[in-house]
């Protein structure tokens, strides 16, 4: 009986989490992924922000379990990041920022 309660609670929690997920707007991610056509100074500032943010995400996600690896060629990084996205349940936004940082 206790196990059934626990199972029920977990399923409800999962459903609530997914509801939260569905509400989470993708709008805040979009500008970070698609560079806006702006003047070069603004663009370079934005790039620098992205780099800093990418490094931060890299250290907080990847560095949580293992030492920082050297950077690999971009197409290898694309595979590694996809693998780590699944294995370490890295969010899509973090994955994109990390990939961008590791391929700069």
């Amino acid at each position, binding site marked *: 009986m206790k196990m059934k309660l626990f199972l029920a609670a977990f399923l*409800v929690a*999962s459903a609530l*989490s997914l509801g939260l997920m569905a509400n*989470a707007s*993708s709008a805040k991610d979009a500008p970070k992924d698609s560079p806006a056509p702006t003047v070069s100074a603004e663009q370079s500032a934005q790039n620098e922000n992205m780099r800093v943010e990418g490094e931060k995400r890299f250290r907080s996600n990847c560095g949580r379990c293992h030492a920082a*690896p050297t950077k690999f*060629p971009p197409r*290898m990084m694309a*595979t590694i990041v996809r693998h780590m996205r699944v294995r370490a349940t890295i969010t899509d936004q973090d994955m994109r920022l990390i990939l961008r940082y590791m391929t700069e």
Partner: protein
Amino acid sequence: MMCSLANWPRKVAQAGLLGLFILISLAVHAQDDEFRVDSFKPVPILTGSTAYFTRVTAGQYQDAPTVSPLLLLPMGDKWLLEAKGSYSDTFSKNAQGDYNGAISYGMAYGQIDYIANRYMTFVAGRFTTPFNIYGERLAPNWIRALQPNPLTSPVTSGSGLGGMIRGGFSGTDSLNVTYAAYFSANNTHHLLATDRSTGGRLGFFLPRQRLEVGASFQQVLQADRPHSSGVFLEWQPNRAPLTVRSEYVRSSGTKGSAYWIESVYRLSQIPSLRRLELVGRGEQFFAASNLSAATVKKLGALGKDTNEGDFGMNYYLRSDVRASASYGRQFVLGRNANLWTIGMTYRFIMPMLPQGGAR
């Protein structure tokens, strides 16, 4: 009335399951177009690690070279095939002083991943069960801070054969939520044995505080149907090169309960020692109560209360080559032991196509 009251958890579970699948369907439909391939086309990769360790456990020497290759085969924008094997040859001295070798090999996981959208990935095949953090994230020998397995490892089923849903998303700017739920079938193959079981994990990561906490559960659906629950924590303070990790697991069956807490300190503030990290781990295992003498004998290491303390160091010659050494003391009633480990690990990685590294 009594009947309906008795069945309400089942009804709540069914309603939750139905809601989950409706939300999954909506999310898949709504987000399908938003997931796009990044600028770089992923290439197949062969990665993994090799290691050579000498272990002295209660005076018994063992030398163990191992190799654990991992094949990553991306297909299109959303698919990834992952297959990880392991091979080791353990040499130990017999009574005559000669070394005898024992070969062991197996498949850690062989799974196909489908990234349905930014929040959800479907996994099918043989996989590591998503219970706490050690098995999935920290177990590879080039990652683990201490080579001896923690005492929590044998308490739960480590592998599954079936399907899994998992993913992560940002709840707010300062909170990431991760989840995983699976179902596994029974498999009696001697190399790929799995239990019929179900379970999952829910985790919360605070990126600013660099703190992750979460909980897991597992229900075995065969034999005496034990269930296990666990909690975990991982914290990296912003102001110090320190990592603190911990896991606790409790099983309802004969496998007892256990916890460990580990801290890793990288001496990055001292230029000459910046490649060195110091590790300490304390752990306790509590055997299930009321075990018969026959069950204790059958369970072996899981039959007696155990306390253990380990200290070690890892020196990174390069980011992919590491020398490690550790000493541990295990306290078991009537059988205390010293555990020495020294060796090296090498993590390799190579593209499987000639132009693998090119854009």
